[in-house]
């Protein structure tokens, strides 16, 4: 096995383009997971009729099936059936975002339950309207506490984006594969892809740890 330095610099622009796609999916998917997860958590907590049961079943379904199966079902079954032309990229964002929303909703639930009963009672004693209790008292206290846990899910998501190669998303791994197939420099391409993942995940997890210690002081 020979390490070809030329291939490293040669493949760099292509891999970088792939990395950008991977990061885009991670960021957009995370935003979707953060927002939708909160919506799921609130629907469950407020016991919104019908939606509550629907979310429960949906979350159970998502958590009990592999992400890759969900990607295929969405891209090859649901999307053509509905007839909306959704790109592989957008499909990836949606499937990953919704998948992780089922996990972040649990994070939010725990964050909300951690708020002491006395906070609810003080809000009642002041006659604050329900919506204000949520927006002004409960969520501003629970959301900052769950940020590190959300960050950890974003890191997992980042590491799972290569799955989307299966529907042709031009992510980092797909670009490495492409470069390897064209130049036979498989070793360099895959090693570099791995190194990109390693560096970014590691730095991100350091950041999350710092956040955790800050939240510990809240």
């Amino acid at each position: 096995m020979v390490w070809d330095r030329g291939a490293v610099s040669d493949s760099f622009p292509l891999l970088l383009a792939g990395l950008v796609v991977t990061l885009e999916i991670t960021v957009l998917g995370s935003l979707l997971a953060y927002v939708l997860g909160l919506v799921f958590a609130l629907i469950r907590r407020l016991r919104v009729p019908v939606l509550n049961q629907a979310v429960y079943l949906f979350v159970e379904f998502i958590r009990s099936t592999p992400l890759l199966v969900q990607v295929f079902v969405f891209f090859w079954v649901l999307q053509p059936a509905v007839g909306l032309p959704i790109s592989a990229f957008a499909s990836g964002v949606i499937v990953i975002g919704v998948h992780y929303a089922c996990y972040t909703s649990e994070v939010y639930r725990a964050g909300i339950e951690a708020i002491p009963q006395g906070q609810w009672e003080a809000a009642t004693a002041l006659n604050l309207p329900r919506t204000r209790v949520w927006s002004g008292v409960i969520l501003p206290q629970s959301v900052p506490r769950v940020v590190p846990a959300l960050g950890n899910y974003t890191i997992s998501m980042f590491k799972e984006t290569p799955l989307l190669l299966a529907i042709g998303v031009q992510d980092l791994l797909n670009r490495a594969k492409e470069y390897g197939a064209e130049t036979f420099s498989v070793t360099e391409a895959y090693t570099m892809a791995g190194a990109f993942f390693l560096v970014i995940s590691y730095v991100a997890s350091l950041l999350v740890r710092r956040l955790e210690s800050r939240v510990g002081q809240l």
Partner: protein
Amino acid sequence: MISFDDVDKSWGPNHVLKKLNFHVKPAEKVSIIGPSGSGKTTILRILMTLENPDEGIVTVDGDELWNVERGRRIRRETTQMKLTRRKIGMVFQQFNLFPHLSAIQNVMEAPIQVLGMSKNEAHERAKGLLDTVGLGEHLDHKPPKLSGGQQQRVAIARAMAMRPKVMLFDEVTSALDPELVGDVLDVIRDLATSTDMTMLLVTHEMRFAEEISDRVVMFDGGVAVEQGPPQKIFQDPDNERTRRFLKAVLEH
């Protein structure tokens, strides 16, 4: 101002209020004393609608707060209840300030959100109230930066900002270090003498209760075993249980 008619409440096998009939006149200051678990706090919590009675009628300032028939479904958060509840303020044993808001924001929150007051007006009023309770220097401090006594005084200002007709004090000094109790009691004493608010205090501060109350109610086993003017209750109680309870607490 406050009336409990045949109010019953149980926690499992624990019968905390037994057909309670209890009435408080406007501007009256009433202290409720008694051993723990005797249902004292439950009276305040039912008034604040934090608990529901199992049975009975509770009215405040002529408006119905609870009207519960045993076995019937209990209706919570009715419009009538919300309106009546506005007349009541409560201060808790554990302060329950909003820790993410500064002292002044804690006091401004409800006037803005519930009374629809402008920010400026709410700020002015909150500042005035915090001055009164001796926290004029700490307007922008968040609760975790304040001592327990300071937090409790912010909590009193927060409840006062809604100008309640009835104020409930639920063992407000029990969670405080002894040296911080005095400042909080001073604030409550000022309120008792300078306002015509109806005040209901559950307390273990017997000397304070004797000093500021118009009436003291001794609670035990879910019933008011004895009530009367503070001098009578503390100096010469008729009831044996009252005598034993006071002996036990005053010896310490």
